[in-house]
């Protein structure tokens, strides 16, 4: 019965950890690829207000953002003042630019999906309604009716 002899000196063979890093790296790349970085740098503060009855926006490709808030860095504030401003894509804009913005955004989408676009208003909680209303009126003029008031999720009390 020496075939299955117990060898007291035999130890557990060391595991090869070399491939472990490969697996982890694969994870790493996966997460790096699926997470999208913010496309345009924001120049305005958009600390959106909280709400409880929120809906998720599906179809991210059919969402265009309109950011409204006061400039977010001290340098910009020195140059432009505290007043809230509109940012479309990666530049400041005026209320009168909205119609054109709507048109260009619609042009860049598929023709069948153009009317399903959502216009997401990312507005800072400290902004007054005046500028928001102006933007909404412009959106109506440009027949961009589907709007989303971007909020953060708050648990129900």
């Amino acid at each position, binding site marked *: 019965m020496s075939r299955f002899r117990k060898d007291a000196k035999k130890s557990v063979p060391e595991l090869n950890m070399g491939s472990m*890093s490969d697996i982890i790296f694969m994870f790493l790349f996966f*997460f790096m690829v699926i997470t999208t970085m913010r496309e345009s740098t924001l120049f305005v503060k958009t600390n959106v207000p909280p709400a409880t009855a929120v809906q998720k926006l599906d179809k*991210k490709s059919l969402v265009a953002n309109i950011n409204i808030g006061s400039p977010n860095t001290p340098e910009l504030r020195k140059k432009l003042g505290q007043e809230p401003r509109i940012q479309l894509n990666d530049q400041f804009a005026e209320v009168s630019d909205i119609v054109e913005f709507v048109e260009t955004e619609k042009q860049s989408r598929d023709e069948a999906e153009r009317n399903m676009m959502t216009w997401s208003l990312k507005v800072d909680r400290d902004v007054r309604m005046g500028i928001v*209303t102006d933007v909404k009126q412009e959106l109506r003029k440009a027949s961009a009716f589907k709007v989303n008031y971007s909020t953060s999720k708050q648990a129900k009390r």
Partner: protein
Amino acid sequence: MAKKTPGLNTGSMSDISFLLLTFFLLTSSINTDQGIQRRLPPPLRGDEKPPKVNERNVLQILVNMYDQLLVNNEPMNNVEDLKDRTIEFITNPNDNPHLSEVELKYVEEFGAVAPVSKGVISLQSDRGTSYKTYIDVQNQLTEAFNEIRNDFAQKNYGKSFDNLTEAQRKAVQKVIPISISEAEPSNIGGKK
């Protein structure tokens, strides 16, 4: 004879890449946008007159530049009361003549007669109203409508609104439309 190179200890490599992994996991958020969705009305044409609505069918909400609420000419101190007020106004369970008219109407999508409220919520804010308060009001209104829809869905389909099929959801939406009309804002504060 060539010297044998000692095997490198690669065990800590996984630690390093784990560190990187957790870093990316924490810093990058898959930012799904969320918020309150609304449909804006098409712009009014010059000769078009707004439809006449009976006074009892309007729940007028005014928000002034100090973020104070006035609901049907009574001040409301807590925004959170607005939800129950809205539900009461729309459903009008006791047939109160001062709340909205609820009419039994045949709704095609629903395929049966259902109580449809004629109530409209008129929301007017000032140019000086803060956006946060505006969202609070919109949030309360959305909560109210969600609850009414949920109740209706529970009663008729035995499921909550979110679990309905597409067709059922359409029917409920038809029976309980979100009728919020936003008037042009006042400009008491003067400044933009």
